């Protein structure tokens, strides 16, 4: 892999290239790094500049975000909402994707077109009627208001990625299963699902991150810590007099670390999901 690189570039070019790489890394990770540094500074140092680095590093902020406010409850809300959304979106999305990829359906192109056009909907256009509907169903300030909305808005993504995966499974496998007496549904969960496992992982990660990060609907449909999710909790972070920058920094780190772990563990899958269809045309 590296032979081309070594033969074609002179030493100074290699140094220049690595310098650019380091700058790219600093640009991408710098803000998060700064948030980490801030989170370690005691309050008196947070509002002093310089020094850049903490003189008297402390974990106080990480303790104080869990004391006295419902941060733990908010994390739990996000975890439940994001997990259930992911599960539902995978179930409903994979069923639809299987049907669209392998079964006979009239107006298939029309259905796919409809699903894709939904992904372009501006959320603000549906937020007022959805608010009225959710209020009249008595679902305001519950997990289900968010789970229902997120599942639907993530369906286009799930269906799109999974349809591409199911299409790659050869028709012969499906036919062989049918000869062996499997119903379409048995074929779906016994044969197709395991074969499309990589696609399922990709979809699950993207849907989870979407639900973990969503703000507009969460802000509108929740009103108390009973159902408030992380983005709303961070946006409305309570402060007595001044904005508690140290606490916000610590809270940001706590809620971002799961995502960073996901990114490092699954970067290949994530990239596959983001580029699905976009490059092939």
């Amino acid at each position, binding site marked *: *892999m*590296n032979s081309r*690189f070594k033969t074609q570039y002179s030493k100074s070019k290699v140094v220049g290239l690595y310098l*650019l790489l380091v700058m*790219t*890394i600093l*640009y*991408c*990770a710098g*803000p*998060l790094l*700064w948030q980490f540094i*801030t989170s370690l500074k005691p309050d008196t140092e947070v509002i002093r*500049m310089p020094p*850049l680095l903490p003189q008297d590093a402390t974990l106080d902020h990480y303790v104080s975000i869990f004391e006295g406010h419902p941060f733990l409850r908010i994390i739990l809300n996000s975890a439940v909402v994001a997990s259930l959304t992911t599960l539902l979106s995978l179930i409903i*999305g994979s*069923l*639809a994707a299987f*049907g669209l990829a*392998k*079964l*006979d*359906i009239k107006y298939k192109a029309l259905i796919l077109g409809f*699903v894709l*056009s939904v992904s*372009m909907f*501006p*959320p*603000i*256009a*549906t*937020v*007022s*009627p959805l608010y009225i509907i959710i209020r009249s169903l008595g679902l305001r300030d519950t997990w289900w208001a968010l789970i*229902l909305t997120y599942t*639907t808005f993530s*369906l286009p993504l799930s269906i799109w990625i999974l349809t591409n995966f199911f299409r790659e499974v050869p028709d012969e496998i499906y*036919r062989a299963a049918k000869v062996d007496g499997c119903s379409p549904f048995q074929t779906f969960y016994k044969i197709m699902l395991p074969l499309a496992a990589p696609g399922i992982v990709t979809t699950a990660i993207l849907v989870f991150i979407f639900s*973990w*990060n969503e*703000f*507009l609907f969460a802000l509108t449909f929740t009103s108390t810590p009973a159902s408030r999710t*992380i*983005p*709303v909790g*961070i946006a409305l972070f309570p402060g007595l007099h001044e904005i508690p*920058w140290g606490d*916000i*920094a610590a809270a*940001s780190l706590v*809620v*971002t670390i799961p*995502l960073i772990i996901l*990114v490092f563990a699954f*970067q290949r899958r994530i*990239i596959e999901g*983001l*580029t699905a269809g*976009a*490059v092939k045309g």
Partner: protein
Amino acid sequence: MKVRGDGYRFVIPALILLSLVTVYPLVYVFYLSLYRRLLIFDISRFVGFENYLFIFRDDRFWNALKNTIYFTVTSVSLELLLGLFIAILLNRTFRFKGMMRAIILIPWAIPTVVSAKMWEWMYNTDFGVLNYLLGMKINWLGSPFWAMNAAIFMDVWKTTPFVTILLMAGLQVIPQEIYRAARVDGAGIFAIFRKITLPLLKPVILVVLLFRTLDAFRVFDAIYVLTGGGPANTTETLSIYAYKVLFQTLQFGYGSALSVVIFLCIGSISIFYIRLLSKGIKQ
């Protein structure tokens, strides 16, 4: 050859959910937009297209539209340029490729609200790291000139990874032989970029532009958390304006009319790009 079977049973749950949670509300929002409806006073009166007529005379709407267009055009162009640069840089063969890709995904993975808080802190006039590093005292979020540009810098940081990832995938599809042949012919870096990379990357660039323009045009969280639309509405975009009308002043009729207008703008942008894309495929 397709396999026979009744596929509808598999698609129906998704279609029901999509219809109930996206199509039905869309019809409903149009219906709401024909009423003068104030949620707190339980007032609801049919006014026809009056709300839409009022939009044309509403200076705040035109201001929000102008802000949205400025935000969209500036941030999408900057993201494309920066993303192209990083994609070409990372496309060179070197070690730690997987690790580099994970690192550039960091801004993408961070919740928008968290990144807005992060940048708000970095933009802080007195204790912000940005002013410290620049040795200046700029009131980034308080000045009408800087606030929108500050929001754009943040958005560029947050969304360049997505652009980079897509463009990298596009670059990988271009056969290396073409580059080798061009180099043998003595073509310089810029000639290669202009004559080979750019034309072959065009379809991917169009897809990137489609996704990013739609996202930037409906921007909400990033700016809402960073500046709340201020100072003096200089960063108020269409989504933020509509949201404030709906949920702060509780004018559901007028807010819904604004929502419909946003929907129509987004629809026109999509149709424009999809036309461009299908034209490209036919050629």
